[in-house]
């Protein structure tokens, strides 16, 4: 008896769509099952308030994996990325602010108003970040090493990785190895003295992380956001029509290759027969058989919720339970009557077209984390805001704007209380109040406000514990240790069951790389 499908993909997040498209492109009959009403996972744009469209999940990306763009012909399916210039605007609490641009010389000029030595160092810093970012990209572009796989293809990968590291040169190799485990604060100490600059850069080392900038490994988290050979610091891309448009592009590409996508189809469990994946069962009881199952869900959800524990060894399950999921982000979306007017900011709206970061210095970030460490919402949160309607006016009614704000730290588990309506309002109020310190017109300009707490993010996108990365991007949970040591190559202990989401190498962010590698692994297993 042959199954109707070769492969069933659970969850139509962006990585799942990439995997599905590649498998269908190779001739497989692929069915995608998505519980929500739309494909795209955390790439989601919705008209929350009439005329105002918001990104509910991810609100920016730094780089889509170029082979994915090319192989799946995303351009022909409507890919329309909007590079942001400036990259980031960091308002100062005293008025004015620092703007960093795509062009390092222009950024250096902006920095010079604060510190000539920082300005002088900016080009070198850009080079160093680019060197490290390019190296990480080269690591990310391949499936991870498997140290436990003696003599297998893993051995060659180790040699290749060592060669690429060596190619950085003695100084480059030293710099990189030194940076990875550093705190982002110490990385900044190495380079800059301007608080505003240190805060604007350091914020990227803690975004989505349950850590402050004084935690080891945050320099790596900073570099993870720069895994690209492009010479840009804090590069930001948006999508015309909102992030949901990228989901639509990926969906169109997948469907063009013949992927069948069913939305509103929640998978209850994966069928395992004789140690092999044999199909899935939907919550309504429908059984769909397929010899290959790919899970875009995070590893916790996949192994602990979708699979009978009997089918997995206790030691494996222990490792899965111990993967650190720590949601620290909330989302506040504001429908604005008018643009925010930051105190002492330059005229016009040019500075508002990239990310806007409220992270005036590293201590501010650390203090914000201190609250979260004890299970409390930051009294003065770190905010990363975007006003995508500036570059894409279709997102808001004429003259009005949408502002999406990633709010951190909002711990998933509160030490005192739960995420009820009062806490939700408190979160919204603190966010607007924090913004008002920098842009006093904001409270008066708010027409509507949407607040997504970490539990909302979890239930909306299936992000366990509200962790936007499918497991924290700490050094012990990346590369050949992602999702767990010994199982970093997209396969699982259950034959025919694969992972393809951000819980696998190279982790979180909108890149498509986990999905790309998962597809590669599956296709080479199929050969």
């Amino acid at each position, binding site marked *: 008896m042959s199954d109707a499908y070769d492969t069933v993909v659970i969850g139509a997040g962006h990585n799942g769509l990439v995997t599905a498209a590649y498998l269908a492109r190779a001739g497989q009959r692929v069915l995608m099952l998505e519980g929500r009403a739309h494909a795209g996972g955390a790439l989601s744009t919705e008209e929350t308030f009439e005329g105002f469209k918001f990104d509910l999940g991810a609100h920016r990306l730094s780089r889509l994996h170029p082979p994915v763009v090319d192989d799946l012909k995303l351009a022909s399916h409507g890919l329309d990325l909007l590079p942001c210039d400036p990259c980031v605007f960091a308002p100062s609490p005293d008025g004015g602010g620092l703007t960093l641009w795509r062009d390092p010389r222009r950024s250096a000029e902006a920095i010079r108003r604060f510190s000539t030595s920082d300005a002088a160092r900016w080009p070198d810093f850009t080079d160093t970040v680019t060197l490290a970012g390019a190296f990480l990209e080269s690591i990310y572009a391949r499936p991870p090493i498997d140290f436990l796989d003696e003599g297998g293809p893993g051995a060659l990968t180790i040699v290749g990785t060592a060669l690429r590291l060596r190619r950085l040169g003695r100084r480059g190799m030293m710099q990189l190895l030194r940076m990875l485990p550093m705190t982002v604060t110490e990385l900044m100490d190495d380079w800059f003295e301007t608080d505003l600059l240190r805060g604007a850069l350091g914020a990227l080392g803690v975004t989505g992380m349950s850590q402050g900038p004084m935690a080891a490994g945050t320099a790596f988290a900073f570099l993870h956001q720069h895994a690209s050979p492009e010479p840009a610091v804090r590069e930001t891309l948006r999508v015309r029509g909102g992030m949901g448009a990228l989901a639509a592009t990926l969906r169109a590409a997948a469907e063009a290759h013949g992927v069948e996508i069913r939305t509103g189809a929640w998978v209850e469990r994966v069928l*395992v*027969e*004789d*140690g092999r994946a044999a199909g899935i069962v939907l919550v309504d009881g429908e059984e769909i058989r397929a010899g290959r199952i790919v899970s875009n869900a995070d590893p916790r959800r996949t192994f*602990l919720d979708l699979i009978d*524990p*009997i*089918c997995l*060894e*206790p*030691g*494996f*399950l*222990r490792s899965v*339970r111990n993967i650190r999921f720590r949601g620290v982000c909330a989302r506040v979306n504001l429908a604005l009557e008018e643009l925010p007017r930051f105190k002492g900011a330059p005229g016009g709206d040019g500075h508002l077209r990239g990310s806007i970061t409220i992270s005036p210095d590293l201590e501010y970030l650390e203090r914000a984390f201190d609250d979260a460490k004890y299970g409390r919402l930051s009294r003065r949160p770190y905010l990363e805001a975007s006003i995508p309607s500036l570059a894409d006016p279709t997102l808001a009614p004429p003259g009005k704007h949408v502002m999406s704000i990633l709010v951190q730290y909002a711990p998933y588990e509160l030490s005192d209380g739960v995420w009820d309506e009062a806490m939700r309002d408190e979160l919204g109020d603190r966010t607007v109040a924090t913004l008002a310190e920098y842009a006093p017109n904001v409270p008066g300009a708010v027409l509507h406000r949407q607040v997504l707490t970490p539990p909302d993010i979890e239930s909306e996108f299936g992000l366990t514990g509200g962790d936007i990365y499918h497991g924290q991007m700490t050094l012990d949970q990346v590369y050949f240790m992602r999702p767990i040591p010994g199982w970093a190559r997209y396969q699982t202990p259950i034959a025919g069951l694969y992972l393809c989401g951000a819980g696998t190498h190279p982790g979180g962010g909108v890149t498509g790389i986990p999905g790309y590698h998962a597809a590669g692994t599956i296709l080479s297993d199929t050969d």
Partner: protein
Amino acid sequence: MLSGTPFHSRTAPLCQGHNWRRWAGYVVASSYGLTHDHEYQAIRSSAALIDVSPLYKYAIRGSDAERLLDRVLTRDVSRCNVGRVMYGPWCDETGKVIDDGTLQRLGDETFRLTSGEPNLRWLCESAQGLRATVEDDSDTIAALALQGPLARHVLGNACDSDLMDLDYFRLTFARIGGVPVTISRTGYTGDLGYEIWLEASAADTVWDTLVAAGRPFGLTPAGILALDVARIEAGLLLINVDYIPANRALIESRKSSPFELGLDWTVRLEKSHFIGRDALLAEWQRGPEWKLKGLELDWGSLERVYGEFGLPPQLPGVAWRTSVPVYVQGQQVGYATSGTWSPTLKKYIALAHLRTAHADTGTRVEMEVTAEHQRKRVSARVVEKPFFEPERKRA
């Protein structure tokens, strides 16, 4: 601190030689008399009462209790109906034995598992995600083994129910001296026998009732030394002696699979999932490297070895538990882990791990003995276990 078992108030006055032994944090009598011979003879010819309370005991309950145990044990627990008892080992993920014990099914969703070493953590970890709870009953449940050809008579005299119908490896619920107990037709002697499980608080009553009921049948309290001789005759394994639990082995080669321990019959590879299955399936396909077999030492050879020194064969006074090399043509092919003089069989016997190539029944091997301070080799024959298996065990 070592403590007495729930029967201590009864066993202590009987323990004439103060010959106590540590067992799982308790002290139990090695022998009550000055030597254990009389107690051993009770096991084989009348009836013996042995305090086995220090056994680890776990209560496993819940709608997934059967699935949990089926996942942990190599046996097919779905076939363990209520009232049945199963013996079996359990393994780690690599198919190496962690422990072995008996599993009693007390109800649809209630089991009791015994083990030689603590297993609470392993059981709890294996229960994650399942609707099953694991409780350590080791201190609250007392246990007595009533073993020997007259055990049924003694028990019939002591309890309120008829045990004639209680088959081998079955259990029943009864009262002894008014105390509710579970009686299983199991034991560690390879003889007709029962094990009695009860609330620790009622230990005295049950002991006194049994002792009184056993008087006409020569019931004798027996210690661990007597039990050890009997269990070797019965070919039953002792953890930490005949095998090292996988989670305590310092090096890989110290671990054993069920196949290597002669427990092939307990491994149900046709079950789709249990811990260690993949490794065991692979091992079964390539064949185990070791086998655990019986050795019977050759009397003539023993006489010759000791005769060199003008001595008659020196036989072990008690069962030994050390590792003793076994050779074939001068090459070491294995090691014996327990041995004893069998008073019933009138033979010197041992349990030995042998490389598969030298483990066929009938193979001639040599086992090391120390005669007059010199290492000598005594000829022995590989035999099947058990050495002693009377019909009454199952009848």
